[in-house]
């Protein structure tokens, strides 16, 4: 938690110390996608649930926000809240089906259900604008802070808005994973059957984390919709689900901040690559393949592991070692 708060403080100072369009441009994207990736990691890293359809909740959040702001007079804060709620409800409905069966079916079903959401978005033209996305963009009312009126779409305002949201989201997630509930979640990841033998409901735990993850993803989606001023079917397409998967794998799945690192890498990489080629999928796919076959450990995890091995680092090193679960023979995701 401390590390995260320090990071947040540094990030808050960054535009002041180093004002640059790159920071203001990439920063919010990294933060928003970081929330998205962290939410997926609650599933993959902490619960052992490999979801391939996480974009569904991202998209529901985005479209809900867009539709509310465009078609109703709801203010920004309530709209954000409702977007998160909508995403959570979608996760509840979909999760209900997906968590009933084992890991492999779960993976297939999350993909299939995300496709359902995509189909609904594409077909329900009157509500969502179909394959054009929400037509007309999203009118965003300025944020009122006392006497100040802050236009949300200004880079600086949005930077701080997304930083605030990210800090709150990561802090909330941290509280959750450190709690007894979080401990049981990791137990379900390691050995769901045994959790049942303890007298707890592994299905209930899984559904709960699925909803929580969906809610956070919805927050990210809503923020993204604000950022780009629209909601598009892309937000729900399966390639959108691939992005947080990449971030979690590359950044590290043994912590909440790992996916943030992965988000930073992917966003920067995409910005860089798209200058040269359109074949972003090829690059992404190739890196994923390299990681699954060769590297296997996310970057933050690798760094923490190296740091934890250094002698006489005391409590900090112990905690780092505790954060980084060294994979042993009995892997949590043995099928």
């Amino acid at each position, binding site marked *: 938690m401390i590390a995260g708060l320090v990071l947040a403080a540094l990030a808050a100072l960054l535009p002041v110390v180093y004002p640059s369009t790159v920071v203001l441009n990439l920063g919010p994207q990294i933060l928003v996608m970081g929330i998205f990736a962290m939410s997926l990691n609650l599933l993959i890293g902490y619960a052992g649930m490999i979801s391939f359809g996480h974009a569904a909740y991202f998209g529901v959040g985005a479209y809900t926000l867009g539709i509310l702001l465009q078609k109703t007079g709801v203010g920004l804060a309530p709209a954000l809240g409702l977007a998160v709620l909508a995403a959570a409800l979608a996760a509840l409905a979909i999760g209900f089906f997906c968590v009933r069966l084992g890991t492999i079916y779960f993976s297939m079903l999350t993909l299939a259900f995300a496709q359902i959401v995509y189909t609904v978005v594409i077909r329900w033209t009157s509500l969502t604008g179909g394959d054009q996305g929400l037509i007309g963009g999203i009118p965003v009312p300025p944020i009122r802070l006392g006497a100040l009126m802050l236009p949300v779409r200004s880079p600086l305002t949005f930077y701080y808005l997304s930083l605030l949201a990210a800090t709150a989201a990561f802090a909330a997630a941290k*509280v*959750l994973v*450190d*709690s*007894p*509930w*979080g*401990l*049981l979640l*990791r*137990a379900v*990841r*390691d*050995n769901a*059957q*045994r*959790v*049942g*033998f*303890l*007298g*707890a*409901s592994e299905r209930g735990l899984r559904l709960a984390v699925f909803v929580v993850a969906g809610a956070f993803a919805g927050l990210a989606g809503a923020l993204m919709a604000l950022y780009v001023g629209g909601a598009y079917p892309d937000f729900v397409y399966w390639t959108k689900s691939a992005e947080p998967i990449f971030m979690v794998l590359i950044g590290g799945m043994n912590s909440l901040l790992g996916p943030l690192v992965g988000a930073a890498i992917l966003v920067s990489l995409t910005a860089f690559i798209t200058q040269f080629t359109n074949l972003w999928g090829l690059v992404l796919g190739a890196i994923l393949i390299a990681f699954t076959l060769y590297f296997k450990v996310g970057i933050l995890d690798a760094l923490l592991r190296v740091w934890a091995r250094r002698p006489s680092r005391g409590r900090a090193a*112990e905690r780092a070692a*505790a954060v980084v*679960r*060294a*994979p*042993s*023979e*009995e*892997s*949590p995701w043995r099928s």
Partner: protein
Amino acid sequence: MALLTVDGLTKWFGGFRAVNGVSFSVGPGEFSALIGPNGAGKTTLFNLLTGHVSKTAGRVVFDGVDITHRHAHDIVRLGIGRAFQRANIFPAMTVLENVHAAVLVHRRWHRRALVPARRDAGGRARAREILRWVHLEDAADTLAGNLSHGDQKVLDIAIALALEPKLLLLDEPTAGMHPEERGETMALVRRLWSELGMTVLFVEHDMDIVFGVAGTIRVLHHGELVAQGPPAEISANRLVVEAYLGEGIL
């Protein structure tokens, strides 16, 4: 009054009858063994008792409650504990966390999401107490997956202990262990009975252990209970000898 009464328990898997009309009673404070050749139905019997496999026929009464149709979750909470043939632990969590998780569930605190688990001093102390009792307290901060096989099986028992069962079913507690470890583990199992007053029913293949330690022995063969009684009686029993014919164990 018997702690556990099993009456005509039967289980068919498709066309295969795994357990056939098994009836017996386990008294409180009993320390008994369940033996039988491979495939005799021992693990299935345990699964039936803990509610993880549905019963085709028969009745089970535990501590005065008819648990025949109860769900596994309920049965655990009523007091039947279980340790498994292959150590059923949580490999990517520390040894302490493994037991703490069980303690949390036992105390119904596992749904608390807003306080750190670290701060549950009572639960962690209880977990440490259990680890001390099974002699694993030094390994508290080791990842469970990194323990030796023998220690993992002991951890399995520790997790079951955290649920404070009245009846403990141990499925081959010494399986896969070195001879030295076996002695230690059996001593631990015996202490469960002698020091904690637990009713213990264990499955074992090592006959030296069984005959050296158990008060009552029940023999399962082809899903049927062919004999039960004190060790002396069992070793003299022709049916039992036949069941094990070719295994050269008795």
